[in-house]
């Protein structure tokens, strides 16, 4: 199954494997949503949207629809 940031639960981490979808804003890539970087889902707003994450030392909030475009591999701890 294709796993994306949108599938993460609060507190879970993953490694980005693909962020090449055309609908991902360039700004997000430049903030560090690039393959190989670790994502940590910190908090969720009600209805899991937006999502608050830490990636590449940046703290960001993105909407669920954007999060579902960034493919990851889950890290089990």
């Amino acid at each position, binding site marked *: 199954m294709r796993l994306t940031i949108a599938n993460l639960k609060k507190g879970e981490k993953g490694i980005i494997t693909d962020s090449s979808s055309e609908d991902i804003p*360039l700004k997000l890539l430049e903030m560090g949503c690039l393959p190989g970087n670790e994502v940590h889902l910190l908090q969720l*707003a009600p209805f899991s949207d*937006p999502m608050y994450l830490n990636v*590449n030392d*940046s703290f*960001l909030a993105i*909407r669920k629809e954007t999060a579902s475009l960034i493919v990851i591999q889950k890290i089990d701890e």
Partner: protein
Amino acid sequence: MSKQLNVALIGNPNTGKTSVFNALTGLNQKVGNYPGITVDKKQGICKLSRGVKAHILDLPGTYSLNASSLDENVVIELLLNKNDKDYPDVAIIVSDVENLKRNLLLFTQIKDLKIPTILVINMSDLMTRKGITLDIELLEAKFHTKIALISTRKNSGITELKQLIESYKTISTEPCLDTTTIDTDYFQSLEKAFPNQDIYKLWLVITQDANFGKITRQELDVSKFKTKSNQELKRLQQKEAIKRYQFINAILKEGQIIDRSKATGLRSKLDRLLIHKVWGYMIFFIILLTIFQAIYDWATIPMDLIDTTFAGLAEWIKNTFPGGGKVTDLVAEGIVSGIGGIVIFIPQIAFLFFFISILEESGYMSRVVFLMDRVMRRFGLSGKSLVPLISGTACAIPAVMATRNIENWKERLITILVVPFTTCSARLPVYLIIIALVIPEGYIIGLSYQALTLMALYLLGFGMAIFSAYILDRILKTKHKTFFVVEMPNYKLPLLKNVIITVIEKTKTFVFEAGKIILAISIILWVLASYGPGDKFNNAESYVQTYETQSAHERSDQIAAYKLEHSYIGIIGKTIEPMIKPLGYDWKVGIGLVASFAAREVFVGTLATIYSVGSASEGENIDTIKTKMQNETYADGTKVFTLASGISLLLFYAFAMQCMSTLAIVKRETKSWKWPILQLIGMTAIAYICALIAFQFLK
């Protein structure tokens, strides 16, 4: 002649760029406009040694040179245009010691434009606490730059930064990344097509969102060279970002040590509370209540003071220069009162921006966006729109100014357009008198009808604002795609200096930019109400009959009423009577409507004059007007103010755009007359239709 050098201040949002700007320029700064767009241009002067002055331009915060908003586009347009008078001799990149890696991405982009670049690392006082160690010498050598470690909070490092600015000529202009390595084939063919151009600049021009830039696109005609699809270009941009991070990471590996065990848990502790599913909303609600209390209640103290001061000043002028005739009248009643009508807004604006800048500076505002995004986006609004919408309940003027913090232009515009629907405090006196007049006293389950009506009006205003936002969101088309990426900055204690400078700057902007329009319109309104054509106005005394029982007061009130009736504004009121007749109003109400344009509460005073109760004292005034209005009848004996016409008037005041000051500030904030005029027509049409339906239905 003293030499001046141009300095551009560039950096990510939330790095304390504005604090650096304030530290360099103090109060030697001014806010202007970039021609044709709604972005503020902040510039200031910084004195260096030997009489050299640096002209500092504080560019809008941006994460990269790839513009995704109008604000960011300003940065790239300037940096790509060597002929611009503001083109920098030296660029200062402000970074934050905790986000160095990400801040350096922008740094490498600016370096590749071959502009001498100084790297400022701000908040350096936090380094030990956060367990960060930097090898400055190594970083300077590898990035080919000079670094200034500063702390605007501790006011350290500013002198060193000034020295670096002064010796900018010694700074290397060597780029960081060889652009051609992104895609060798593509860039070689690009070089062949434009042999005399800088390859990185070309690349930037090609990849910029076509909807923003005029830049050098036409000049270079790069459209001829579109050998790649948008998707392919996007891939290359991603590759560029990866390459830049590889370069940065390799250097930081040597030059930066972070001891993660020292990281304090302040962020996560505060976040757990401030964006909690229950507590988060409650805290936000309490903050909104406090802001509301400040601008609705506390601000009235200085406002009353301003009111009496200007009234006293006008009186003093009239008494001191009694021989001045019309000139004295113009100065005292037209100009002084007009200026008073501008100054009166200052307390509310100052209070609101005091709070907003604290919310922004502390990092809390991003949490509000996080909390509110899901609800607000449905109406085409931003999470940040809530602060203006609530402030609008006190006054639309500071509220419209407060939309400046909304980054997305469409969301900002919609907020500006709908804010005047919320029930501002100037509507209250009008509501109170009409409710007292037409809504029966009585109770339903312990609640008075009159109180319920007032509450319904507040809800109606807010509901209309939200509803029209929803409609506007579907009508308004933006050229560029919007997206939502919000940085959640670290929590910081706001710097008082920054807060004060923001308050001063916002107040100045209002007084000098919107103020001009307000003063002009209020003088026009004053002239219309104080002059009239023909004998009936100029010789009112001889037309008004005298009764024996009449006191001098009553007589002068009656003359004033007669004069107002035959003044220009009176004539306008009578002219529009056929138009407002279907709403249930007579020409006297018409005069009140026209006069309301100065400020809605003027309606009550105007009616007082027209019903010749002008000189009665404050307290009895309201009662007297009420009685007069109650007894007001048409020629056929039917009452003017009935439930039907009263409700119709309430609805009209709830929806109509009747405030010239709001129009003036909307013009200032949208930089065009298009939006205020649209607002005037649209809102007034809605008001007219609602009032018409209500009156015809209830009649």
